[in-house]
């Protein structure tokens, strides 16, 4: 880790001012990913601006009937918040599927959105990586790529976004409130994370001088028919090979509205409008679910070590939609998949 100077921000405007005045500065909140990357010399900020004292720690109801979650609400507090557990259980479930309780106690809502990929080569400064060192090449494409993406990849990068929380936020169609030098703006969740293209060094469309202040959930929470199904190499405390957030609104056994978001398969939480459209108006049966899975995966492409993800994702989608339709969401403590 390189030496750095430490400063505290007193309010959001001060935070934005401080980040704008030093191009080598970074914000720190929970620190669980940034400090790890600093120890690996992947992140090398020469100034850290501690934002943990900013007043962004509340969960409030919005006029529209949704919720506004402050960017500094810790992951664990969010998962156990009564309004989240009751109205947006898919979000609570996804958060509890990720990391460990110690990490969730530290990690912030905003930081979870901004965490970096866990691609081994991104972490290993001895190897080329276009995300870490633009133009140096991608070691994963022809290397160890078991964890890597099967959708939306580019010749420059096949990394995946590691978050579980973000997969649920994608399904819920959250939006983000950000502040910057020219004021505040909102970003639809689907427009926040990027595909790698030829600029994999940019994970999101957040500008360098901007700060995430809140995540807003719309009123619709899909609390009756949802699941977050995460498949990984061990039962707990591991990143997803494939994860599926499925949320349905049913009229009897007919699907009125469907949301389907996948983690572990792309550079961002993956949604597919055609797959969701194909579910609407259909009966809740395996044929409908299989068709949606095939549609979502129609352009999926495996690499040497991760081709298993194509079939894993296909079966996972069918299973997740079945769990959601039956109102039997995946337990995050009893890991038997039913």
């Amino acid at each position, binding site marked *: *880790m*390189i*030496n*750095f*100077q*430490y400063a505290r921000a007193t309010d959001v405007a001060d935070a934005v001012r401080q980040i704008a005045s030093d*191009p*080598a500065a970074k914000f*720190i909140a929970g*620190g*669980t990913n940034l*400090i*790890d990357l*600093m*120890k690996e010399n992947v992140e*090398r*900020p*020469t*100034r*850290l601006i*501690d934002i*943990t004292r900013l007043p962004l720690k509340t969960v409030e109801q919005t006029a529209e009937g949704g919720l506004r979650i402050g960017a500094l609400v810790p992951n*664990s507090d969010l998962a*156990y918040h009564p309004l989240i557990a009751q109205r947006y259980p898919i979000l609570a479930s996804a958060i509890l599927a990720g*990391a*460990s*309780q*110690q*990490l969730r*106690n*530290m990690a912030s809502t905003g930081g979870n959105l901004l965490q970096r990929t866990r691609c081994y080569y991104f972490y290993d400064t001895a190897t080329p990586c276009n995300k870490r060192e633009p133009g140096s090449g991608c070691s994963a494409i022809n290397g160890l790529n078991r964890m890597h993406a099967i959708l939306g990849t580019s010749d420059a990068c096949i990394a995946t976004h590691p978050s579980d929380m973000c997969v649920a936020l994608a399904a819920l169609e959250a939006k983000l409130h950000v502040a910057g030098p020219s004021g505040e703006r909102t970003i639809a969740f689907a427009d926040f994370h990027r595909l790698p293209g030829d600029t994999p060094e940019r994970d999101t469309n957040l500008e360098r001088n901007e700060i995430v202040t809140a995540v807003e959930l719309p009123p619709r929470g899909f609390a009756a028919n949802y699941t977050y199904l995460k498949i990984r190499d061990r*039962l*707990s*405390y591991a990143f997803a090979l494939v994860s599926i957030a499925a949320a349905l609104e049913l009229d009897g056994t007919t699907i009125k509205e469907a949301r389907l978001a996948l983690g572990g398969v792309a550079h961002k939480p993956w949604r597919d409008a055609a797959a969701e459209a194909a579910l609407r108006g259909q009966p809740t049966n395996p044929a409908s679910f299989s068709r949606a899975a095939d549609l979502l995966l129609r352009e999926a492409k495996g690499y040497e070590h991760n081709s298993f993800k194509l079939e894993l994702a296909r079966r996972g989608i069918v299973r997740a939609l079945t769990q959601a339709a039956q109102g039997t969401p995946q*337990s*995050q*403590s*009893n890991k038997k998949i039913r």
Partner: protein
Amino acid sequence: MAQTGASKASERRIGVPEKVPVVLTVNGTQTKLELAPWTTLLDALRERLGLTGTKKGCDHGQCGACTVLVNGRRINSCLTFAVMQDGAKVTTIEGLATDGKLHALQQAFIDHDAFQCGYCTPGQICSAAGLIAEGKAKSADEIRELMSGNICRCGAYPNIVAAIQQVMGQP
């Protein structure tokens, strides 16, 4: 800030490290420290305060050996800078016993032989104390899930769960 002609912002170095004042209340005793900002809470506890009960395992938040309680919540002390915890109350394994009497979890770990080498044990016990305070784990499955941030390479997991269940008053 000294800049020595490095072309990229990310490669600039800062000059003489400035130490920053940090006040921590560790195991009930308030301590004033002057620390370089990059000192993790773990290193401050071990290297500056001599509290070596908190272990450095992986130093990357993957093993849980460094778990301590900060303001009553369990965290990985290797993944936070001490300066960020300025003003906080920290409880380490050394602070759990009272008046020479072991904490119920310490006694339960002995009763159930919940360790072999013992390296992960301070983190396991602090994590379990946090788990019980959270009140979310009701079943053995839930204890296992919510203790998954603490790795035991000796594999004492069944006895660790039994020890925690004893303190929680479960059969």
